[in-house]
């Protein structure tokens, strides 16, 4: 699996390329937002005389109820969104992947217990679960991260469980036991690396979900408190001024839409590029090289 062929295959997939471009742009903006925004003070200062101005040359997306530049706040909001998505999905993976590995590797009640727990979490509508957890923990960005982690982990567990079960029967995993490798060694060095592609896909798709959920939590006032430029809470603020100050709600709405789409398109593209084709090309080249014979 040469890197070049991966990138070239990704490049050939138009949706994936678009998703990739959006994602990169999003991350770059989040990284340098404080230095590029037109009105860096927009995050905390208020300018009452400038309230609710429609889009203009000076304020591309107009101003908000406190007179701050909506565009600047939008860009600054990328940081919170990225933070929440990254750490939320990270927390989910940290919880979900080891549980999935254990459940997939072992038989019996431990495995059953883990999977039933995952099923219970999955049976509750995700957004309601996230709201309930965030509500319990209280409004803060860190709690949104935790809420996301506890909401998303069963997806990882399910995925890792299924893949581990399948891999466990592969001769090369069985052969590790024959050589005397311990289960931990086998899981860490052989099983986990072979899960990399489906995990990357799952992480990317979960990021989209995390952005959406974080926005919903922000909208409900369960995210970071007041001056935060977080997109969901911005929409909530803008609600009162609709439909007159349409730009106020539209800008963060569009931003959420684009970023979520970006992650989903990238995830779908990665799934196509990484997963089936990788397997097919390895199998095909194995068959091919079986015929190339002794060098």
């Amino acid at each position, binding site marked *: 699996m040469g890197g070049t062929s991966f990138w070239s295959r990704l490049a050939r997939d138009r949706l994936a390329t678009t998703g990739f471009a959006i994602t990169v742009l999003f991350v770059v903006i989040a990284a340098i937002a404080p230095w590029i925004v037109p009105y860096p003070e927009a995050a905390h200062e208020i300018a009452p005389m400038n309230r609710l101005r429609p889009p203009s040359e000076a304020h591309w997306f107009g101003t908000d109820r406190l007179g701050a530049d909506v565009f600047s706040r939008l860009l600054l909001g990328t940081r919170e969104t990225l933070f929440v998505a990254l750490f939320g999905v990270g927390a989910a993976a940290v919880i979900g992947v080891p549980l999935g590995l254990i459940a997939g590797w072992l038989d019996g009640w431990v495995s059953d217990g883990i999977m039933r727990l995952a099923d219970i979490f999955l049976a509750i509508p995700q957004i309601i679960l996230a709201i309930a957890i965030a509500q319990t923990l209280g409004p803060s960005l860190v709690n949104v991260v935790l809420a996301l982690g506890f909401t998303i982990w069963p997806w990882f567990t399910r995925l890792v469980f299924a893949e581990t079960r399948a891999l466990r029967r592969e001769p090369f995993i069985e052969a590790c036991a024959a050589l005397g490798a311990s289960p931990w060694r086998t899981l860490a060095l052989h099983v986990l690396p072979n899960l990399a592609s489906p995990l990357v896909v799952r992480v990317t798709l979960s990021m989209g979900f995390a952005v959406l959920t974080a926005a919903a939590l922000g909208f409900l006032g369960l995210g970071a408190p007041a001056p935060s430029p977080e997109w969901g809470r911005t929409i909530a603020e803008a609600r009162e001024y609709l439909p007159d100050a349409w730009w106020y709600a539209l800008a963060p709405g569009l931003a959420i839409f684009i970023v979520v789409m970006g992650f989903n398109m990238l995830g779908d593209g990665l799934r196509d590029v990484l997963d089936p084709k990788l397997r097919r090309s390895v199998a095909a080249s194995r068959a091919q090289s079986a015929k190339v014979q002794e*060098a």
Partner: protein
Amino acid sequence: MSLLEVQRLFVRYPTERGPAQALDGVSLSIGQGEVVGLVGESGCGKTTLAKAVLGILGSGEAEGVIRFRGQDLLGLGADAVRREIRGRAITFVPQDPFGSLHPLYRVGDQIADLMAWKAPDTAPPSRLQERLALFTRRRRPAHRDAAIAMLRDVQIPNPEQALAKLPSELSGGQRQRLTIAMALLPQPELILADEPTTALDVTIQAQVLRLLHNLVREKGVSLLFTTHDLGVASEICDRIVVMYAGQEAEVAPTRSFFAAPRHPYTAALLQSLPNEQGVLRDIPGSIPPLVNPPGGCRFHPRCPNASARCAAERPPPVEVAPGHWLRCWHPVAA
């Protein structure tokens, strides 16, 4: 006249590294009622040859002459071959009996569908009929009786019951016998069997070999039998064709093939077989790449008899004894 005549057939598959010359000017003929064995190492093009005759090469491009009953199949066009010849006059027994049987349909239904389209007494379907295939049913009760008779012929116990089973409910040997039955049902003139016994145990293989042998004798069908097992080839073949890197190296009646091989490759192949003396001789080197193969005789990098001429010029086929053809500049002594 031969039933099937393949002349200077080339098949190229496009690959990332350039076109792979899977068949490299192979010639071959099969007479009426004859069993011809096609042997050779993995990758030499045995399956490709069978697929070329059936017109199912996929991405491969064929060039040359394939004459069946005097009619050029490559000139006839893939569509006409598909409707009039493939599955009717020429049938195929695949290596993997699972691959060709639908796992979710009962054996009886699969046979009935086959008979509906390919039975000897049905006309080839028109295009419209093919389009409407999902809606029309051309099954006839007579077909069921024919199917049961055929299953009995291939010694599937309890044929009525077998019709109601799924392929996965049959044993490996029974599945392979079923694919043979399905290849026989349209009453073809030629059967192409691609390693039909490779996946089977020796005792089951023996059953299948005897079955094929008897059926071919009784029904006067011709058989092209692909295998890499020389023992199996010697059981049922009248003539054996050894292929090396996409071309026939030696063609001989079975008896002289084993008793007096003349091509250095055939001789080396026979020597590498397990023998009672327990002496192991392999063929040094490896089979040539199909993209940019060596020039001259394809076997020259591995051949003990090779000369400068072998590296430069391709040996043409020469008849060294009646029915015994050879492509070699320096054959081994008879």
